[in-house]
């Protein structure tokens, strides 16, 4: 694996590789938050459909 600095390729250092591992943890943490938001949105939409709104009405009214 390489990093491109000012169009010159360098091998990743041990520090770079360590940072990539830390980033994986952070990306997973952020993804979990985003997934939870998406689940709430889907859940809310499902409840609105149960209340009798159509997909089009929900989209026009709530943008989801």
């Amino acid at each position, binding site marked *: 694996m*390489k990093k491109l600095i000012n169009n010159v390729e360098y091998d990743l250092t041990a520090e770079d590789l360590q940072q990539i591992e830390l980033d994986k943890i952070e990306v997973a943490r952020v993804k979990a*938050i985003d997934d939870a938001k998406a689940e709430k949105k889907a859940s809310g939409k499902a409840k609105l459909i149960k209340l009798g709104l159509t997909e089009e009405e929900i989209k026009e009214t709530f943008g989801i």
Partner: protein
Amino acid sequence: MALTTLPANAFVDDAITSDKINLANNFAFTGTVTGTPSGMTLLATSVVSGTGTTSVQLNNFFNDTLYNAYTIYINNCTPLTNAKILYIRFVAPNGDIITASDYVHVVSCTERNISSDASGNAYNAGEGTFGRINGNVDSSSNDTYATNYIMNLVDPLNTTSYKSIQWQSTGIDQAATGYRTNNGSVWLKQTAALGGIQFYFSSGNIAVPTEFRMYGVTK
């Protein structure tokens, strides 16, 4: 008789100065003119080759004397594997990547999906260790649907204000049905001068034909 054309060997050197020619005159050059630039000046180009590039940095091009803003184009931005998110981090003047949890980002997206429209936003709660410059949907690895960016970074050398970058992009989803226009901002809640910027995907590498170009906007 007045001259209408200066012969190529009219000057013994290639330095045209006011004692050799009237610099107040107007000239319609058809060749290449070099000298003090104005407007936008290309400062850096980085072109991804092969399949092993994890990140790209544009470092040490900020110049407070000549420029007070920088425009970055990312052409045909494509992850090597599908469904990745492009992130940035700023780089300190000594070359260290700034990984402190001081980044805030907001993203807004408008999408056309065949016969319907949609919108989507993304942001990080609190602060994070990177800034997201991707729309609310992952980037496609199909370079037919590559994402194109334009970004503006203003006054990165100032030591008074938090740093921020504004960006806009156009992207197409993997199914080639969703066409998106995205825009957003990333802030770094630090006031120290910057040395550069780093780009990387949420995981995996950056693919050909991704190209990065940084221009300085002349003061």
